[in-house]
């Protein structure tokens, strides 16, 4: 409520243009993937393992198929193509065969005339299991002390970083082990898809909520044993993603059911199934030791980082690399020795979630910075300013930070934000820790302040060329844009027309449906779409503009290089010509397609050295909390933040990302955790998995640091991930400040505060 937004006449870059889908969304007429429907449609549903680890002795589907209304029951033996899928490593079975490796692993699928019929059919499938002792300790994967639970072994990846002189020691040393719980993305729009088979059975069309249409298509086609071009994907409305839609969930199952029955299949997870049907944020244990000089300059970092990847690989290998390469935080450090492990266990698979490995690393390095500050007698702000990274500094991987790195400015501008007023003598009871529980007693409430600062890589790393494709067509003054970029709520459908208006001087811009009839846009993740798909739209529009200028130059006998766009006109910079774009483009049409590739990256070598990342963004957070020290309850009062955004192409959208990211980081700090006991998930529901509500939302005061990045196509850095990264350690630090407790684990539980 603290940042006002100025709106200008034309919705070009830099304005707070409004969402083109806003009208449909506020009226309930926007079609999410769960809202689509087809004649003669059946419902699909999945049978999942109740055990974290078990041998499958037998599966008997005979009773299920007899139920009136049930059309088919599928198991592993019905998969015609590749038996496994996976985002980086294809190690997850479409259906379990012989063994189940986590609670919730798919075993069978049914298609029937009604969701209730599906439920009864699933209940009628008899699976005989031999229950095995689950392997749930990642350390056992590292030591090799338990037999492999998967043919690929129990260690998903090990990466070491050795940097500088590892024999260096410092007069000041601080160390601790930190723990991060398993967080769920908890998007609201549950997994859903409609699969419509071709009449000849040779392919299908799917409307699906996903982060990456082309990757889904590739994996579906392999499992179906069909050519990719026979599978056509269209983006259904996506109700949030946050990383959880990067992996396959129901896509292959719905496709198999559709091809088997020859009828459209609608699949839609329940909330409980959603908790089992997508990957989560990795729980992690991170030990760190910092060596510093007496005046607080970091001399060396030692770290051992253990990430629990769960039963299947998903993106664990990439998450781990983000973690180990970000453990220094946004601070200079010349010497380091780091060991990172991603381990396979019988816990639910973990993969992408907003922040992607950096969230865990940041909780550790920021907690360490406060320890270091205390040991050196410095304030949390001073220790961070002294070590703040600048452009040109090197990471512990040897990679120079070529991105604009306004770390010091982020800290100083955050520090300058006014603190919230002290609690009044008679505060509203809902504003106190415990909120609507109305349990707090003002005499037990202590206020604390804490800091967090972070660095986050943008785009994919380690040689992956995650390019984006876009097409621009200018026809009689109207621009039509085409791309396969998943709109998951972040607002690329708002931004893309802004780019076209700025580049081409038009006002009417149509965005075609996102589907696989154009080249890949890569994933809507890694804070990458403004940079990558934005770069592709910008490139396509620029190519069209060249054609338009050539056309006008020819008509007026001018050099096209003299022409420029001025608002909605084309002007001759060396003469008097001024002609509106709509007039200039009357009766002609130009169409161009552009692929944007970021600069190449390198793999890390065995010592973790290499230029593995593309670019970086930075942010600072300061948290103010009130803690009921007797009940261990926390109310986050205010989050102040200054974020390095490069250039705010749509300030309103940027603010939305910042406030939303902060809420998710707050969730990880004080309430959100998937609880597991020996591989059994105990809280797969919104009743038991707590999410921040309107009453938990802190006052957010945000400053956008705009120093356009010359490497970014539009000067803009990705803004989606940074807001949720350092806010978590900032809140934890504020709780430490209020209570004096160690707080080495998030989410912080009441027992961590008052027992």
């Amino acid at each position, binding site marked *: 409520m603290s940042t006002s937004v100025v709106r200008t006449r034309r919705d070009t870059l830099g304005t707070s243009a409004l969402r083109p889908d806003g009208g449909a969304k506020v009226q309930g007429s926007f079609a999410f993937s769960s809202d689509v429907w087809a004649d003669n449609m059946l419902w699909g549903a999945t049978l999942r393992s109740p055990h974290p680890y078990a041998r499958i002795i037998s599966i008997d589907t005979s009773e299920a198929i007899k139920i009136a209304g049930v059309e088919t029951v599928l198991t592993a033996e019905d998969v015609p193509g590749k038996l496994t899928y996976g985002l980086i490593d294809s190690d997850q079975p479409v259906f379990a065969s012989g063994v189940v490796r986590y609670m919730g692993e798919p075993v069978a699928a049914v298609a029937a005339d009604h969701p209730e*019929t599906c439920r009864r059919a699933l209940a009628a499938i008899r699976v005989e299991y031999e229950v095995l002792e689950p392997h749930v300790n990642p350390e056992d994967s590292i030591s090799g002390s338990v037999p492999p639970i998967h043919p690929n072994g129990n260690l998903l990846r090990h990466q070491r970083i050795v940097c500088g002189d590892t024999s260096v020691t410092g007069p000041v040393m601080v160390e601790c082990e930190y723990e991060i719980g398993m967080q769920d993305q908890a998007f609201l729009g549950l997994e859903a898809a409609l699969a419509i088979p071709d009449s000849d059975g040779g392919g299908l069309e799917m409307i699906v909520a996903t982060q990456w249409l082309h990757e889904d298509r590739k994996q579906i086609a392999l499992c179906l044993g069909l050519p990719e071009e026979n599978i056509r994907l269209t983006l259904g409305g996506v109700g949030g993603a946050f990383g959880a839609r990067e992996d396959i969930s129901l896509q292959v199952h719905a496709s198999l059911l559709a091809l088997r029955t020859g009828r459209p299949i609608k699949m839609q997870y329940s909330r409980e199934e959603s908790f089992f049907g997508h990957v989560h944020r990795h729980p992690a244990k991170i030990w760190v030791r910092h060596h510093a000089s007496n005046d607080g300059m970091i001399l060396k970092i030692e770290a051992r980082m253990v990430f629990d990847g769960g039963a299947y690989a998903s993106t664990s290998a990439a998450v781990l690399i983000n973690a180990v390469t970000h453990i220094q935080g946004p601070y200079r450090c010349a010497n380091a020795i780091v060991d990172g492990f991603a381990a396979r266990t019988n816990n639910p698979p973990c993969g992408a979630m907003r922040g992607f490995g950096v969230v865990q690393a940041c909780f550790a390095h920021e907690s360490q910075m406060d320890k270091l500050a205390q040991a050196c007698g410095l304030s949390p702000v001073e220790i961070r300013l002294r070590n703040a990274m600048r452009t040109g500094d090197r990471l512990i991987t040897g990679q120079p930070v070529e991105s604009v790195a306004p770390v010091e400015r982020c800290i100083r501008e955050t520090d300058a934000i006014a603190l919230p007023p002290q609690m009044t003598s008679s505060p509203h009871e809902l504003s106190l820790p415990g909120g609507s529980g109305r349990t707090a007693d003002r005499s037990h409430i202590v206020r604390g302040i804490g800091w967090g600062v972070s660095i986050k890589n943008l785009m994919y790393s380690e040689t992956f060329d995650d390019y984006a494709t876009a097409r621009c067509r200018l026809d009689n003054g109207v621009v039509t844009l085409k791309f396969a970029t998943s709109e998951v709520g972040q607002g690329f459908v708002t931004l893309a027309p802004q780019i076209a208006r700025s580049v081409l001087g038009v006002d009417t811009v149509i965005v075609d449906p996102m589907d696989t009839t154009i080249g890949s846009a890569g994933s809507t993740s890694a804070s990458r779409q403004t940079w990558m798909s934005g770069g592709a739209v910008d490139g396509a529009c620029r190519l069209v503009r060249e054609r338009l200028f050539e056309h006008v130059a020819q008509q007026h006998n001018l050099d096209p290089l003299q022409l420029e766009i001025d608002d909605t006109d084309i002007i001759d910079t060396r003469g008097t010509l001024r002609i509106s774009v709509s007039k200039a483009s009357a009766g002609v049409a130009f169409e161009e397609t552009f692929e944007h590739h970021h600069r190449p990256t390198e793999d890390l070598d065995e010592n973790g050295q290499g230029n593995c990342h593309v670019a970086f963004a930075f942010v600072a957070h300061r948290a103010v909390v009130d803690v009921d020290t007797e009940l261990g309850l926390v109310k986050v009062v205010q989050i102040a933040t200054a974020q390095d955004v490069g250039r705010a192409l749509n300030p309103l959208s940027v603010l939305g990302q910042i406030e939303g990211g902060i809420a998710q980081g707050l969730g990880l700090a004080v309430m959100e955790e998937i609880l597991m006991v020996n591989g059994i998930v105990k809280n797969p529901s919104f009743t038991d998995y707590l999410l921040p509500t309107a009453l938990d939302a802190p006052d957010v005061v945000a400053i956008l640091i705009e120093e356009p990045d010359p490497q970014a196509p539009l000067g803009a850095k990705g803004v989606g991930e940074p807001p949720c990264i350092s806010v978590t350690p900032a809140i934890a630090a504020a709780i430490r400040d209020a209570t004096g407790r160690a707080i080495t684990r998030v989410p912080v539980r009441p027992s961590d505060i008052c027992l």
Partner: protein
Amino acid sequence: MRTMSETQIYSLRVNGKLREVTDAWLGESLLYVLRERLGLPGSKGACEQGECGSCTVVMDGAAVCSCLVLAASAVGADITTIEGLTDGALTDVQQAFIDEGAVQCGFCTPGLIVAVHHLLDNTPKPSEMEVKEALSGNICRCTGYGRIFAAVTRVIDQRAQQ
């Protein structure tokens, strides 16, 4: 599967119109019947246990989670869904949500719009804490609520000036 004893024909009064529901399994929730049988998919399902508010409708003047209401038990009730708030033009609440950036993915939005209308119909000038408490049953995962509060504040201010 579904025997005659499990299905029923009944009528619901939705958005001012009496709508017949045929061949419906008696276990269906109001949310399911609205979405799958009556062509009103604006109400969204996200938790099936009344925690998230995405399925909020107004039933006889009370804001309820339609996922928790057995459809057949709603016979005789007056039900208003997101589709029934207006007959075309956007309401002030809907417009404010767009203008203030309170919509991202939009999945929680219909439920929130219904909840905000219900709040302001019953409490025209709510305090900040009354707004937060009234909306605390509607989970939004994208926005962090800041723009939603801004939208509600805008409507309260606009209505106060009228």
